[in-house]
């Protein structure tokens, strides 16, 4: 340190520094004087003007909150509406004896003690002149009781407000979502001016994804009030623009059919209108009742939902990740044909297992003893694992990855809902980056039958099925069909034209195999082919939850329910002119053909019946 001091001239530095301190202090005094001048201007010169504004007949700007837009299904059935709700509110300032008043109200309306306690707490946090609610959601009887005695309760009044209501409750809670009170974090995020006066904001689903459209534009009124804050005169009013009404592509009746068809199983059903991409059914079961979230769900009720083993708050259709199982086989088959790794007539033998050259491990077929010699169509129909092990080995993971990607696997579908998961489509690069490991040949085989790392969402599966049914014209799923606002109508999403280059013959070969899944003598989903006048193309799948050891046998009855395999089914119909594509996942449902296929069958049947009537 002393070195640097040698070349320094201390007296010069000292003088310079003290000089600067003096200058700084003078600047500080000058700037402070500036502040004082402004304060004098405001507090002495402008005092009278501002006093008038603050006191007496002051002019206030009050926000006029717009009505939130409604949500309808494709047939105009109301999915989210605003219903009036009545609350009993007290203004502490105007009540001379609070305890006595509360006691009388308690007697009159049989209010439980804890509500009174709650109110006492709430009251202390609020300013004395603020109207604070004692009871929310009054029924007709309570309203009538209070109306009679109202003159004897100064400072107590009934307030009306519109509360969001979801008539279909847990049937479509995951799609529609819900609104809830604006929380601290959201206050900072939301545009201040637009939400002055608003109490609720969309938290999930369409309510959240289309918050901007649904909320509307806040207006305001300049009003003149007297000392008691009583309205004297409205000087100016800018009326609010109500929120836009949304018309979904969802068919709530079809949604109910799908929801009920899942029975007691947890799972998801997604159905897409192939011609447009509009989502017809978007079921995640179990659902939950969104209505309590609007008024503020009780803590224990929320905890119960949170900690439930069935995870009702979890949107399985949008965010659930499952191995595709055998439902991936039609796509692998198509990849094989497109890359000419196999011809439609070529037969491969299936002895019930497959071995990689020089490896001991046996990759088993689901059918003990094997399927014999099968071509591609039969391999799909009977879901022959060995055929697809062989095909996958020939194709290689790189081809499989790039082909499946074109069908939307491993990426978000871009549906107009927030929170979609992209799933996982494994590749050599992915494994090197994420697992720091090389890709093993065995992993290629199991990817060929939809096991291993590959994970899909039910939405992805439905979308891929629709794209296949559409002969390669990519289907882009969306939920909001029409947005109707004061500015006029507009479409929810713009259709895009992307077509995959596929050979029509190859597509036909695969679809023939899928038709036989339902209509063939050996099809894995023939349970649903009776009593229908059209053809369904489908594919069953079973996704392992538990790894089965070599030589061990999977015995459905012997293992715990939650480790049972997931049942999957994808389908579209009519096979010759596809209109609807469906993907069904039933958690722990066991084999796809017996439980999942009937769900899809019912949805297809109802949809086609309805559309033929028109």
């Amino acid at each position, binding site marked *: 340190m002393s070195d640097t001091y040698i070349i320094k001239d201390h007296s010069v530095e000292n003088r*310079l520094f003290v000089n600067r301190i003096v200058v700084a202090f003078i600047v500080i005094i000058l700037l*402070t004087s500036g502040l004082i001048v402004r304060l004098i201007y405001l*507090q002495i010169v402008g*005092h009278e003007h501002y006093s008038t504004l*603050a006191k007496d007949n002051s002019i206030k700007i009050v926000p006029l909150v717009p009505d939130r837009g409604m949500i309808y299904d494709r047939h105009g059935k109301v999915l989210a509406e605003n219903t009036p709700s009545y609350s009993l509110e007290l203004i502490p300032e105007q009540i001379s004896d609070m305890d006595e008043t509360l006691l009388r109200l308690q007697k009159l309306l049989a209010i439980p003690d804890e509500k009174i306690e709650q109110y006492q707490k709430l009251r202390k946090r609020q300013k004395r002149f603020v109207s604070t609610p004692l009871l929310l959601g009054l029924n007709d009887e309570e309203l009538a009781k209070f109306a009679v005695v109202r003159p004897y309760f100064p400072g107590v009044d009934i307030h009306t407000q519109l509360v969001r209501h979801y008539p279909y409750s847990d049937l479509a809670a995951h799609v529609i979502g819900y609104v809830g009170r604006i929380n601290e974090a959201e206050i900072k995020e939301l545009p*201040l001016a637009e939400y*002055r006066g608003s109490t609720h904001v969309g938290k999930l689903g369409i309510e959240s994804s289309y918050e901007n459209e649904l909320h509307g534009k806040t207006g305001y009124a300049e009003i003149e009030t007297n000392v008691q804050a009583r309205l004297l005169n409205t000087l100016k009013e800018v009326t609010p623009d109500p929120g836009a009404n949304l018309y979904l592509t969802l068919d709530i009746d079809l949604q109910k059919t799908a929801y009920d068809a899942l029975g007691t199983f947890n799972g998801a059903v997604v159905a897409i209108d192939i011609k447009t991409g509009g989502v017809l059914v978007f079921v995640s079961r179990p659902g939950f009742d969104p209505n309590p979230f609007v008024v503020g769900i009780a803590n224990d009720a929320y905890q119960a939902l949170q900690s439930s083993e069935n995870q009702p708050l979890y949107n399985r259709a949008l965010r659930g990740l499952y191995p595709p199982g055998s439902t991936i086989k039609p796509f692998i088959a198509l990849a094989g044909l497109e890359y000419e790794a196999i011809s439609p007539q070529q037969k491969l033998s299936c002895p019930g297992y497959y071995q990689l050259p020089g490896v001991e491990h046996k990759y088993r077929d689901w059918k003990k003893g094997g399927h014999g010699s099968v071509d591609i169509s039969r391999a799909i129909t009977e879901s022959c694992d060995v055929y697809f092990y062989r095909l996958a080995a020939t194709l290689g993971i790189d081809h499989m990855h790039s082909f499946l990607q074109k069908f939307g696997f491993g990426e978000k579908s871009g549906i107009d809902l927030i929170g979609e998961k992209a799933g996982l489509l494994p590749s050599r690069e992915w494994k090197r980056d994420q697992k720091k490991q090389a890709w093993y040949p065995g992993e290629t085989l199991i990817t060929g039958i939809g096991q291993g790392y590959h994970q899909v969402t039910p939405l992805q599966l439905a979308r891929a099925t629709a794209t296949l049914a559409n002969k390669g014209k990519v289907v882009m799923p969306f939920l909001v069909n029409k947005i109707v606002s004061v500015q006029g109508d507009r479409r929810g999403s713009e259709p895009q034209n992307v077509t995959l280059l596929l050979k029509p013959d190859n597509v036909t070969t695969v679809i023939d195999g899928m038709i036989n899944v339902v209509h063939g003598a050996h099809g894995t989903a023939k349970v649903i082919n009776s009593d229908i006048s059209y053809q369904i193309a489908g594919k069953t799948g079973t996704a392992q939850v538990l790894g089965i050891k070599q030589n061990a046998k999977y015995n459905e009855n012997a293992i715990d329910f939650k480790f049972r395999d997931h049942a999957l089914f994808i389908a579209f119909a009519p096979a010759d002119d596809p209109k609807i594509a469906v993907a069904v996942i039933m958690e722990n449902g066991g084999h796809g053909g017996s439980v999942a296929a009937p769900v899809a069958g019912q949805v297809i049947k109802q949809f086609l019946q309805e559309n033929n009537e028109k």
Partner: protein
Amino acid sequence: MKNETRHEQFEPPSILGNALRTLHIDIPLFIGLLLTSLLSFLVLYSSGSQDVDVLMRQAGRVGLAFILMIVLAHIDPYQFKRYSTVLFGFGILLLLAVLIMGEIGKGAQRWLDLGVFRFQPSEMIKITTPMMIAWYLAEYPLPPKSKQLFIAAILIVIPTLLIAKQPDLGTALLVASSGAGVLFFAGLSWRFIIGIIVMLASLTPVIWHFMRGYQRDRVLTFLNPEADPLGRGYHIIQSKIAIGSGGIYGKGWLGSTQSELDFLPESSTDFIFAVFAEEFGLAGCLGLLALYLLIIARCLYIATQAQDTYSRLLAGSLAFTFFVYVFVNIGMVIGVLPVVGVPLPLISYGGTSIVTLLAGFGILMSIHTHKKFRTR
């Protein structure tokens, strides 16, 4: 040693003097800070709906901040100098970490979640930037040459931009002025100072171009608050009404109607001065400004008494930054400056700013109370 003798006169004599010396507390500064903090509780009680819980929470933070101040006052200023570069570098790393996490989180990100507590790296930078600049300039004879100015400027610009990107304009402004303060006290030539002012003025359109939508809105609102009466303009209109209606003597403690009626948003944080002005009037405002000026004057005095260049520059800059705090906050509340998120120092509700502020005062006390124990 003229300084030493002059200093002696300020030390209380005898036993008490010795005790205070061992405590490393500068009494005038301590009293000023204590008075301001106590005043803060008075205003917070009124602005925060008379909620005792709010007070208790704030009291806890203030208590912690005072403890931190006293701890820092016990550390020899030589240690601050020694670790200036390390602390500065560490702060920059944390800022980068926050920014990267913000990228991932897709939104404004200022906090670093350390599990046990959340930490705002930009707060730490408010102190480490002047430390760094002071450390760097103290190595060379003053006034600094062009090359040193250039490097110092870069050292200021880096943290400023990182914070502005968060985006936190208020803190960026404070960091920039803390660094600029050091340069000024180091003897930056007047030609440079005027040059920079001219340059900034001519750069205004460019800065405007890079501002985010809401930042532009704030400036527009500042220029014409009545254009957006429900949004940002609302703050300024209502706070002017509150202040103006306070008059000379104010409406008395708890007499604020504007904050009471909830016309005044953020009445406990950035806009608390409006509540103060409404309740205590011009007289109270003058008193508060006097209190601030006393604190600043004491800090500047400490700077003049400091023994080495580093301590001197740092002390001067900390005093200057404290003033910028006061000026920017009051300026925005009374409508002469655009609204940037800067709290009223020592008065506004919230823990982060008070901790940093008192840490700065702790360093000042350390500079002032350690002189005698160091030989040169």
